[in-house]
């Protein structure tokens, strides 16, 4: 109980004393009647529900517009390649780094588990399958959210609050095709490529640990891999990464595009973009795994 009070106390205090509502509830200054408090909470809840419904509608329209835009191919190659550089090329170092360590830790943990069943010869396929089917697309998407997604939200959010997007609109340019679509297209190309890099370096990272630390031969690590890893595993991983690209960019760009307020608004949008993207990646990962087969 003390723990809950300590953790959530400031949150409840903020709600009770929230400003900007039709009526400010401040128990330290004035006594309010039960009906006034009830009115405040009904009003507050109603506003939250309306805001939530509006956000769902707006973000849904944003996604539909993005998907239609993908088929219209209205953005310039130069703009797409600029964003490819930002989302893809500049993320590759962090992807390689995380890929190597993920492969290494998978090899260590896998060896521990497999040795209990006397199946250490299957370490290579186990590492490869885990990376290709699951960890490659998920961790790549998470790393790109952390590096590029958050930056995109902050950049577009800043453009919104400093009237740069208004300026683009007034010039007669559609901000959607100029700002949003090149990022979307670039991400759809970059995500599967980055995932492939992650998978390959992860497998080699696992190999490093298996051969140097666990004294397995390279032959036994790679030997069974081709018989256990099928083309469908690779295809599923690629499909996942493309869907993650659309989801991540949808959330990050939507949050930036509809940023309100000044610096505080930009920071809120960026935090929300990262948190929502991460949650969506895990949710969609489960859904896709169950749809694509396991």
């Amino acid at each position, binding site marked *: 109980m003390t723990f809950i009070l300590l953790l959530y106390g400031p949150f409840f205090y903020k709600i009770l004393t929230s400003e900007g509502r039709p009526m400010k509830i401040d128990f330290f200054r004035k006594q309010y009647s039960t009906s006034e408090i009830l009115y405040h909470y009904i009003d507050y809840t109603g506003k939250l529900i309306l805001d939530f419904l509006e956000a769902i509608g707006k973000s849904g329209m944003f996604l539909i517009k993005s998907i239609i835009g993908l088929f219209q191919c209205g953005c310039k190659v130069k703009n797409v390649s600029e964003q490819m550089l930002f989302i893809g090329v500049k993320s590759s170092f962090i992807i390689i780094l995380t890929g190597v360590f993920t492969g290494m830790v998978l090899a260590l943990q896998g060896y521990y588990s497999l040795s209990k069943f006397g199946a250490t010869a299957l370490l290579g396929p186990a590492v490869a399958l885990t990376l290709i089917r699951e960890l490659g697309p998920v961790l790549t998407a998470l790393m790109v959210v952390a590096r590029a997604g958050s930056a995109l939200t902050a950049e577009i959010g800043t453009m919104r609050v*400093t009237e740069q997007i208004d*300026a683009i609109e007034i010039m007669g340019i559609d901000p959607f095709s*100029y700002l949003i679509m090149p990022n979307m297209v670039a991400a759809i190309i970059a995500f599967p490529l980055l995932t492939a890099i992650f998978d390959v370096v992860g497998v080699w990272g696992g190999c490093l640990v298996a051969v140097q630390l666990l004294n397995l031969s390279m032959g036994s690590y790679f030997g069974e891999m081709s018989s256990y890893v099928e083309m469908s595993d690779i295809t599923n991983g690629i499909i996942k990464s493309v869907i993650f690209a659309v989801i991540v960019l949808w959330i990050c760009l939507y949050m930036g595009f509809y940023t309100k307020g000044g610096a505080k608004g930009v920071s809120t949008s960026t935090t929300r973009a990262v948190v929502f993207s991460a949650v969506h990646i895990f949710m969609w990962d489960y859904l896709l795994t169950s749809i694509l087969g396991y």
Partner: protein
Amino acid sequence: MEPVIRAINLHKTFNGQKVLNGFTLSVRKGQLCAIIGQSGIGKSVFLKHLVGLMKPDQGQIFINGQEITNMNNKELSVIRRKFGYVFQNGALLDSRTLFDNVALPLREVLRLKESEVRERVVNELEKVGLGDAIWKYPSELSGGMIRRAGLARALVMNPEIILFDEPTTGLDPIISRTILKHIRQLHRKLRFTGVLITHQIPQAFDIVQRVAMIYKGKAAVIETPDNIMQCTHPVACQFIHGRLDGPIKEDYF
């Protein structure tokens, strides 16, 4: 003759606060009209209505006789090509050089050849005295340079109508005067129709033909600069002379 800009009985409310409350204004072809009024009274909101960035709760806006109030984004983007807009803070794209900022509408809207884009951009930037800063980024420019760059970007499409949202705010008196002088020269040369929001009183009155003062959401006074300076209207008189006593007091403090 049909006015180029005609706003009739505009109403706009934000979070229960009425900002425009029956605002009506017409600007004839080739006329430069100043809008003055207290800070936060709705001057920039009015300009954003003119380009369709905001929709009025009630009322109509006509540009060259065409009603824009109910237009969709596609129709608005055609109308917007008639406009140049000089923002209060420049609103230049930070990730682009000055050249790319000014070239943006030429590349994206007119889709001109790169050689033509280069010629027009350099020409426009030289006109505003930024010929040496072409490859600089907005973060490397001073406040005055940013405003001039914003002016160059607004002019590069040869617009019929130019809207100036406080182009001299926050600048020193000499740079402010230089920018106003520049606007006057351009207006004499190009004869565009314009709306200028300004607090630069009375300097800005030298370059405009009419002055409208927003008060309580309405165009309380619409006069020539000379008439407004003669203090015939108490609200305008108090505002332009910055007097503490008068009808504005209760709202201001």
